[in-house]
């Protein structure tokens, strides 16, 4: 497949930009749909931690990598089935217990090899960047997948504000670690060395697909989805998409990541979705597209780079992907 990493992204002509009236109309339709969905699931036990706020954003453009033309995973499924081990290892634990986490006020420290180290606050991330919708496939290493309409801004826009130095080759992220508010971190049989850490190579961080995410389905993230700010790299396995970020550092060395520390033979630094590279726990050739059921498991074949090869394969040219998994 020809690799053309940069022009693989849409160059939007002004004539193609949706007129605001149409956009607003579409948004009100979405709100109505969301309200309807809310009614339909009024009996659900999943507690909404905090009222999520409606966001203003530019919708994803049709026919681009920013908008997967696939059926969306319903909001309730996307926000009731999560891995967020700070709140427990069961998929339902985050929706059950994450409301104990305080997300306002929120401070993100940006430092390391940058010219202008500093801090971002909740207001900065919700209003200080142009928000865009990105409909991405999300592939968990556990062989299930979703399609989620995220709202956010490119990580590159955030990093540029702090002016990374030329010697900065990697970006390191850390999740909030607050024992009093995170019951999973108090489990004495848990072997994760908190806080949760993740990292990207600088070119991965600057790739237009890489999204600093503040919302989904038009609203701010609920706590279980990583409020108020999380990473989304759609060509990588879900665990790379670190949640509830409080620290971002530009480094000259490849950062250590939590899962890599825990089981390096299972979880690599790159963690690119790759059906050819097997995992000791789960076959990566297939995935269950959620919602799935016993009699209709909805198994689909997993694509290399989760279907984003055109956008990212160039980043790994000449690398042995079986070795750098």
């Amino acid at each position, binding site marked *: 497949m020809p690799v053309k990493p940069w022009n693989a992204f849409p160059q939007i002509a002004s004539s193609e930009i949706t007129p605001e009236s149409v956009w607003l109309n579409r948004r009100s339709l979405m709100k109505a749909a969301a309200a309807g969905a809310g009614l339909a699931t009024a009996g659900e036990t999943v507690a909404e931690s905090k009222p999520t706020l409606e966001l203003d954003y530019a919708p994803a453009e049709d026919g681009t990598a920013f908008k997967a033309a696939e059926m969306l*995973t*319903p909001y*309730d*499924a996307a926000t*009731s*089935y999560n891995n967020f*081990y700070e709140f427990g*290892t069961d*998929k*339902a634990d985050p929706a059950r217990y994450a409301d104990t986490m305080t997300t306002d006020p929120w401070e993100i420290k940006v430092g390391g090899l940058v010219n202008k180290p500093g801090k971002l606050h909740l207001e900065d991330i919700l209003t200080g960047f142009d928000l865009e919708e990105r409909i991405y496939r999300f592939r968990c290493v*556990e*062989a*299930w997948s979703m399609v989620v309409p995220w709202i956010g801004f490119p990580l590159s826009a955030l990093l540029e504000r702090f002016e990374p130095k030329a010697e900065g080759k990697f970006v390191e992220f850390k999740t909030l670690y607050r024992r009093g508010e995170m019951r999973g971190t108090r*489990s004495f*049989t*848990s*072997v*994760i060395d908190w806080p949760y850490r993740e990292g990207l190579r600088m070119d991965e961080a600057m790739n237009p697909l890489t999204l600093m995410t503040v919302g989904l389905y038009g609203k701010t993230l609920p706590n279980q989805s990583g409020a108020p700010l999380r990473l989304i790299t759609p060509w990588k396995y879900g665990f790379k998409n670190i949640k509830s970020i409080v620290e971002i550092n530009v480094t000259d060395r490849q950062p250590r990541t939590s899962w890599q520390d*825990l*089981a390096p033979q299972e979880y690599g630094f790159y963690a690119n979705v790759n059906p050819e590279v*097997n995992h*000791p*726990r789960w*076959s990566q*050739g*297939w995935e*269950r597209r*959620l*919602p*799935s*059921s*016993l009699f209709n*498991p909805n*198994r689909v074949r997993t694509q290399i780079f989760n279907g984003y090869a055109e956008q990212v394969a160039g980043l790994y040219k000449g690398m042995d992907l079986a070795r750098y998994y």
Partner: protein
Amino acid sequence: MVMLSKLLGFTKAWTLPATINNSGASLFAIPPAWNPALRAVVFMACLAPFLVLVSAVASNTLGPDPAEHLMHFTGEWVIRFLALVLLATPLARYGWPRLARYRRMLGLFVWFYATLHLLVFAQVFIGWSGEQLIEELAERPYVLVGFLAWVILVPLGVTSAQAIRRKMGRHWRTLHKLIYAVAALGWLHLLWLSRSDVGDAVVYGLIFLCLFAYRVRHAMTNASAKAS
């Protein structure tokens, strides 16, 4: 395998028939008759997890990814029934002899839930693909040991019929000592599945360890009683 059977066979008193037929120190009397009402209650109690699962599947309350829940639920009940069947003998010895009558039922429920576990795996994880089953067995040791445990359960289940048991005589007991191998493999399967939290594996590991240790100790006291 030879080593294993030697290891498992070094004590004859680990299974119940020895305690009925011999006049050893640990003899206890199994009530000769079934209590039909109690039997029905125990049977329904053992079946209850399955009924809970059926109703959850029917009412679609297992969330967006039932695969994982179904695997976890059926797997955990296999481990629990293994613990129960291994617990039945010591409890029977110490004041609850009727329980010995229920070991076959409990053992068959181990097989039942293990089979469900395997069926769910075939349906939601590998889509009934033989090719994928081979890949799973070849590449994932935890799948291999789990599968092996199920394979061992097959002859145990089949030979649990009273008529076959009688025909097999003393070989039946030797064969059924393989339940210890099933417990060990099942626990290993659970341990290798643990990702970041080994809580379950530790708890069940301690339970199995106690139940194994009890048998070793019992066999040793029996042996020394015979020697004196």
